[in-house]
């Protein structure tokens, strides 16, 4: 019984973290039509910054979280300004260049803190909440709530602000949006910063729980792509729903069977979606 509940909590947490990462990826695709292979590394950078600030410098965990978001948002902005802007006419080129960024960030992390070191981050919410026979670790609950909170903020931004409307306009029809006076460059930078920041936040949230290594981003990016393909590649709602479905499935199979089998099953699901429902759950690619 305890295992079942643990797994449920883990599934919820995995859904939350995956959703944060996947939303960013969906946002970038919707707005800029770029598939950002480096997105998993931004998650990794978020975890590293959190470690550096809170453990290495000994400061508050929440400062680490803020730092993580800031640093990844800056990297996101840099990617847009220095790289994507020069390759507007070449979408395949953008994809390839993100592979380059992936490799650079990975090596950067190795140089920063070594390849095999054990990096620990203490959670600001240690211990577990005990309700009768249930054990609910506080930090996992925190991750779930924080992720939901961040997603609410994002959705508010997109639905209720002028900025959000601009973003959605660019996602729907780039040319029409620019004819309306919307600055594509500014929206692109903002979208990259937002997307990267979300990934960084996810990394920061998960830092006390997972093993921090230069390669921690790789399974994340694979999961994120599976999720956005399932959800419909440019759709944020799709990404959220698919995150929950996929992460729950994956967590359960991982726990009760084996994590390699879970990965194989996940890849088969992605393949099945690509074959039978290429538009994913939510249909068209334009929805942001």
């Amino acid at each position, binding site marked *: 019984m305890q295992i079942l509940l643990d797994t449920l909590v883990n599934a919820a947490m995995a859904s939350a973290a995956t959703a944060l990462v996947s939303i960013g990826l969906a946002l970038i695709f919707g707005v800029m039509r770029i598939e950002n292979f480096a997105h998993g590394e931004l998650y990794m950078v978020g975890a590293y910054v959190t470690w550096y600030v809170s453990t290495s410098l000994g400061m508050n965990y929440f400062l680490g979280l803020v730092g993580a978001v800031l640093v990844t948002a800056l990297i996101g902005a840099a990617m847009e300004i220095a790289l994507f802007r020069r390759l507007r006419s070449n979408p395949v080129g953008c994809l390839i260049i993100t592979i380059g960024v992936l*490799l*650079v960030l990975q*090596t950067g992390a190795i140089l920063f803190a070594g390849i095999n070191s054990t990096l620990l981050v203490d959670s600001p919410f240690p211990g577990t909440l005990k309700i009768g026979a249930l054990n609910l670790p506080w930090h996992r609950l925190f991750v779930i709530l924080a992720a939901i909170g961040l997603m609410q903020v994002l959705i508010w931004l997109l639905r209720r602000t002028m900025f959000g409307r601009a973003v959605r306009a660019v996602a729907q029809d780039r040319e029409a949006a620019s004819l309306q006076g919307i600055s594509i460059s500014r929206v692109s930078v903002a979208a990259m910063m937002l997307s990267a920041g979300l990934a960084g936040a996810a990394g920061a949230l998960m830092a006390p729980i997972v093993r921090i290594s230069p390669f921690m981003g790789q399974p994340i990016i694979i999961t994120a*792509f599976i999720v956005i393909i399932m959800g419909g590649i440019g759709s944020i709602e799709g990404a959220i729903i698919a995150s929950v479905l996929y992460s729950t499935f994956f967590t359960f199979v991982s726990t009760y069977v084996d994590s*390699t089998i879970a*990965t*194989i099953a996940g890849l088969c699901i992605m*393949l099945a979606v*690509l074959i039978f429902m290429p538009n994913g759950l939510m249909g068209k690619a334009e929805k942001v």
Partner: protein
Amino acid sequence: MRSPGIVMAVALLVAAALLPAVTGDYYTAFGTEIAITVLMLSSYRIIVLTGEWSFAHVVLQGVGAYTAAILVKDLDWPFPVTLAAGAAMAALVAALLSYPLLRMKGFYFLMGSFAAAEAIRLLWRKIPFFGGTRGLSNIPAPYLEIGDFSIDFGDPAHFYHLSLGVVACCLFVMWRMEQARVGGIWRAIQQQDVLAQTVGIESRTYRRLAFVVAAAFAGIAGVLLVYAFGSVTPNRFNLNFALYLMIWAIVGGTRTFYGVVLGGVVLMIFDESLRFAEELRPGIYGLILIGVMLFWPQGLEKLLMPLTRLLGNRARRSDPA
């Protein structure tokens, strides 16, 4: 068919064959690795010729590798047969995968190829028959014995020459295919798929042909890999290697036949010089990739284009048509 390009190619082949005479075992074995990589890159290019990028190519090499490894270890089959079997198995797997995968194009095809390939690779890790995470090892080198004459291909120089011969034959076949009707059809599909269909070209069939043929050559590369290292592990065919293959192809340039060969040779030599900084390698490749995409997207082959244009013009003037 007599053209300066062929003369160059033969000259380079002869020069390459002299490698063991001028260097020791270590660099000769490295030469074998370069030859195998060149085969991988040229066969990868066949897929790129039809307008697609794939992440499944290294795993198809793995199919050839595992096939040969198992046939040698369990059944003691001789080299030429395992070579053919590796190629055939890789081609078969590719043919099966092509049915679902070729319904997709572009980014979706890339993702689909990754999903299928990684699933296969994880099965190799999981299933004891394939040796699990450790893979298979202690695979003996080929041995040729005809009457009194025998060659032990365990000797790096002998195996190098064998690999060079195999790779040269494969390159020749690939080059010929590209110049023949099927090459023209692949190019037509890549440039304007819809128009190609309108003039009677069934793109799905020809894309499948490209995928399967490329896989067969990857399978051969896999067989050579197994004999070269005496072992095969699943990690040798993971995403990192797929990314490197892609990077080598891009840096070399995929427009011409020799572009990827050039890229492979140059980058592998560059790679070797990075051995002191093994950990930095991904980052340096990343920087190279970013640099090439921003400043030199046509790749290294552009360097040689003025030279080939010169040679090509001389050839064309003697061509009656």
